[in-house]
Every structure is written in C-alpha cells, then in structure tokens.
C-alpha cells in the first residue's frame, strides 16, 4: 500500500467519521433525555437527503440552501414527536416500546419515500461534484470536504450550545439527573422535547451533507442505523464526546479495512466492535454508567 493511498484512506476515514460523529451525537441526545433509542434517526437522515435532492431538482439552487428549511422543520418535528408520541408511552415499558414506535416511524418514512420518489437511486450533480483537491498526493473530493465541514461545524455548534448556554445547562442537567433538574425548576418535559428537536436537526444537516456526495434510495437508512447504533454503544450510551471519538475511530477503521477487504466486509468492523464492547465492557469505552442498565 503506497503512502499516498494510506493517507487518502485516512483522510476519507476522518471525513466519514465526522458525519458519523454528528449523527451519533443526535442519537445520543435522544438517549440522554428520554432513554430512547431512536431507530428512525437514519430514516430522517435519508428524508433530509431526499429533501435536499428534491429542492435542488425543483429550484436548481445549491442543495446546501435547503438547510434553511429542513433544520427548523426537523427541529419542530422532533419536538412534536417527543411531546406528542414518545411521552405518551408508559414509563414502565418506555425503552422497548419507544424502539418499536421509532421503528414504525422509520418504516413509514421509507414507505412514503418509495411511494413519492420511487425506489430509483438518486444523485445530485453539481458543478463542483467532480472536482477534488490534492493533498500530498491524496485526492479528496471537494463535496466530501464540504460535507465534513458542515458536519464539523454543526457538531461544534451543538457542543457550544450544550456547554455555554443556559438551555444547554438545563439539557445536560436533564440528561444527568432528571429528578434533580426538576427540583431546580427545569421544565424537563419541555427540555426533553427540545433535545429531540436538536437531535433531529442533526439528521437534517447530516442528510444534506450525505446528499452532496452519495447516491440515495429509500432503504438506504438501514445501512446507516446499524453503524450508528454500534457507535453509540461503543462510545457509551449517553456520552456525546464518547460517541464522537468512537465515530472517528470506527470511520477510519472502516476506511482502512476497505482496501484489503472490500466495502461490504469492511462494514462488519462496526458490528465486531459492538459485540466486542458488549463482551468486554458493556458500559462502553468512553461513556457514562447509564449504558449497562439500558
């Protein structure tokens, strides 16, 4: 393997890992505020990608502009989803039933996408789609760089929001100790709704980034949900930094394994990491102690 190929692989792995990290952060948010594994996260991701593609096809404008619509829209949808559906489930069976409910939502979204846009594979062709930059002999597509920049910016913004604002403080308090947060006057129900909104907003951004350089089709979300769930378990359910680190490591791992093993087998790295984590350290490698109990 030549040095430039290795470098290229590494860079691609980091770029992919950035997107994984953003999406895994979204999943972690849902889990944090409600102890819910949101299976429909990747379905919303694909939905956002379709919206970006549709926006581009109808208006001819840059698909990035669709973010202006999809991000607020997804935030509201996420809020309503939590307040209207998830919070109605019985607390005793919340974990299992919420998985089924979000699974049902994923199926519905997949079905509707197929219904409206057919199962045909779609791809956005932009003026800069084919261009790439050369770094030390490694060719990196511009769209991948844009996608990564988008994901990284969103992740940094999310982190700043959580760390620096009063809302973020309330959200973190809700995640760590809901009873205590309530005692301190935090409206945890509303905060949980906002947490869902934020999580879904990451799917909107991720979907747009995905649409830039990938071929999309309705059932694509199954290829995303597996790796994403593996990432949040390896990272330790409920820990955003843990999810980000696991995402980067596994993204790079997947990229590196693609060279000797091919794309399909390389995907198994996520599942191997998942099973290894559960056998060795069920609470995850970077995260909190929530995981073991859920």
């Amino acid at each position, binding site marked *: 393997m030549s040095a430039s190929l290795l470098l290229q692989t590494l860079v691609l792995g980091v770029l992919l890992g950035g997107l994984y990290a953003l999406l895994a952060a979204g999943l972690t948010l849902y889990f944090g505020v409600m*102890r819910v594994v949101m299976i429909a996260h990747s379905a919303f991701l694909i939905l956002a990608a379709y919206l970006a593609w549709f926006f581009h096809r109808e208006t001819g404008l840059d698909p990035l502009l669709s973010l202006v619509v999809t991000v607020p829209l997804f935030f509201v949808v996420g809020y309503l989803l939590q307040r209207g559906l998830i919070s109605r489930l019985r607390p005793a069976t919340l*974990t299992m039933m919420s998985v089924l409910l979000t699974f049902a939502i994923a199926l519905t979204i997949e079905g509707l996408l197929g219904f409206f846009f057919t199962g045909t594979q779609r791809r956005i062709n932009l003026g800069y789609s084919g261009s790439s930059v050369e770094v030390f002999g490694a060719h990196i597509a511009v769209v991948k760089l844009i996608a990564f920049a988008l994901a990284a910016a969103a992740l940094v913004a999310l982190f700043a929001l959580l760390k620096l604002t009063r809302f973020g403080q309330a959200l973190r308090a809700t995640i760590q100790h809901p009873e205590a947060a309530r005692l301190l006057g935090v409206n945890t129900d509303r905060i949980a709704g906002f947490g869902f909104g934020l999580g879904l907003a990451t799917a909107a951004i991720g979907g747009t980034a995905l649409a830039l350089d990938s071929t999309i089709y309705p059932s694509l979300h199954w290829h995303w949900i597996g790796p994403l*769930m593996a990432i949040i378990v390896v990272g330790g359910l409920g820990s955003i930094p843990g999810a980000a680190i696991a995402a980067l490591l596994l993204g790079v791992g997947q990229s590196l394994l693609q060279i000797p093993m091919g794309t399909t087998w390389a995907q198994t790295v996520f599942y191997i990491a998942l099973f290894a984590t559960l056998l060795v350290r*069920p609470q995850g490698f970077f995260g909190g102690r929530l995981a073991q109990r859920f």
Partner: protein
Amino acid sequence: MPSASDTTTGAAPAGAAPGGATERRSRFDTTLLGGKIALLVVVGALVLVFPQMAADPFILSVGVVIASYAALAVSWNFVGGFTGYISLGHAAYSGLGGYATALFITRADLNPWVALIGGGLLVAVLAVPIGIASLRVRGASFVIVSIALVLILLLVAQSWASLTGGAQGLRVPRPFGEDVLRPEQHERFFYIHVAFVVVALALWWAIDRSRFGMGLKAIREDEDKAQALGVPTGGYKLTVFVISAFFTAVAGGLYALWFGYLDPIFQFSILIGSYMVLMSLLGGLRSLMGPVLGAVVVGYSLEFFKVHYGDSQFHLVALGLLLALVVLFMPDGILPAVGALVDRLRPEKRTSIREMTAEDLLEHNRRLDGGTGTPEGTATPAGSGPGATDAERDLATVPPREEQR
C-alpha cells in the same frame, strides 16, 4: 358493589353471600371454560379442513404462508412474551435456519428432515455466545444488538457467495420429490407447519406454568428484583433465548423447504423480524394464543396488500402505521383486551377488591391484631379519593430511572 351491602346488612348474610358469589363465579368460569374449549375445537377443526376447503392452490399457499408466520411468531414469543426482551432481529435465526437446512441437504447430502433439525440445533449452539453477549445488556442495547445481528448476517450472506449463492440465491431441493404436485406440496406443508405450531405452543404452555416460567415472568416485570429474590436471571434468559432461536430456526428451515429458494435480502430482513414482533404484540405477548391470532391477522393483511397493491412501497407505510397504533393504543394486544371485557361480565367482580380495601382491610387487620381496635393497617385512608390511590400506585409501578448513588 356487592361487598358494601354485605357489610351493612349484618354478619349472617355476609357469611352467606360470599358462598353464593363463589358458586356464581365458578359457574361463570365453567361456562367460560366450556366456551373456550368449544372455540378451540371449532377453530382446530376449521384449521384441519382448511386444505380441503381452499378453493384453489393460491388460497392454500396463502394458508401455508400464514401458518409459517404463526410458527415464527410463536417461536419469537418464547423470548418476547416471557422475558419482555423485544428482539427485532429474529430474522437472523430464521434465515440461518433456512440456509443451514439448505446447505446440509445440498452439501452434506443429509435427509431433509434431519437437515431441518440439524439446522435448528446448529443455530441453537450459535445462539449461546450471541445470547451471552446481548443479554448482558438490557432494553435498548439488546434491541440494538438484535438489529445489528440481522444486518451483519445480511452482509455475510451477500458477500460469501461461494457458500450462500450470494445475490443469485440458493435453490433448496424439495423434500417430497418432484412427482408430488404443487397443491399436494402445499397441503403437506400446511399440516407440517400446523403441527410445528402445536408443539411450540405446548412447550410455551408448559413453561408458562412452571417455576422456570415464573422466574422468566419476574424478569420481565423487574429483573433486578427477580435476581434479588434468587432467580438466576442470566441462566434463565439464556435458556429461553436458545429455545427461541432453535424454534425460529426450524420455522425458517421449514419455510426454506416449502418455498425452495433463499435470497439473502428476504431471509435476513429487518422486516421479517418486525413482522414477528407486530404479530405477537397485536395478538398479545403474554398470552398463549396471542401470536397465532396476530399472525393470522397480520399475515392475511400482508397477503391482501400484496395482491391488491402489488410491490408498491405502500405496504411499508401500512405496516409502520399499524405497528405505531398498536404500540400507542394497544400495547397489551387483542387477547388481553378481550379477557378484560370478559372479566367485566363476571358476576363477582375481582376488580372490586381495590374499592373495598379501605373498610375491609381495617376489619381484617383488627381481627389480626386481636381486636385492639386501632385503625392500624395498610388501607388507603378512607378520605383519600381514587386520585390519591392512583398516584400512589403510579409511584409504585414506575421503576426509578437510575439507581441512586
């Protein structure tokens, strides 16, 4: 509320009334039992004559498909119903069972029925490490693992083309030879599936009434608590998980023998796993016949959709909406709902216990304490309305979200 009038009218009628009530109740129960047996006989007879009644081979094949769904749902319900661990990835075991059966026949030249059982046993062995890894974690993580398992097996089955045929699919030789005609094949497989379902139900029933089953149900209700009472939760969960994997694999193998062709996309499909969940949930996870009822309803609807709407994506939407509705509005399923309805017709209402606790318990505790007459006891204070009781009950049933440090 009969008990209230009993206490006001004095001791003698109070003594007599419960006797009468018991008699009435037992008569009601006898009628109920008779009704159940009659229903069972009628349904059983209908099932047995179905192949003769079926108008054409297509209807018969739909019958086989529904019986196959019932076999999968009942197998799934060993884990789901007893322990409350919802596996969305049981297609992994049915798919593995199908491929194992097919490969045992084609590669090892085994008799099809030996291959079927061998496939089931192989999957049961594989389920041991999988169970150990995935049952260590609860709730959400377990579901994640179950989904991941299907996705990983799909990858493997597609990539390992030299063994599985990959996307080309795999032909499974027919066990009854080529000279047996299609309708005859369907008929035989229908009966085989029905026999499989009966065996699985019998085992489910036996576990349900055993000490093992009591431990499993305790795990479903509160795993920590069960373990604190001495239930070896790990071993119990693993045992029932392996049983479930074995039956699911055999059901998958039966399907492979009947259908004669395996494709990774359809074998290792999240959808198949979610059908099993939906069927069991709709019929009633905690009841013996729930998954069978669910399989009939969902299986029939799926076939109906296929006939009328073809291959459109609409069946996904229908499945998604139906699952969401069941989860939101009927998480206990049809059969428990019917059971509650029947209970309401009961002449002596069991549910009235809740309302009569205040006075009766006071009386009861007085007797226990040797007539000291102190209002000591467990009763909810007579003054507090049903609202307060509800709040207390909620407090008790909601488990703490996180163990306090």
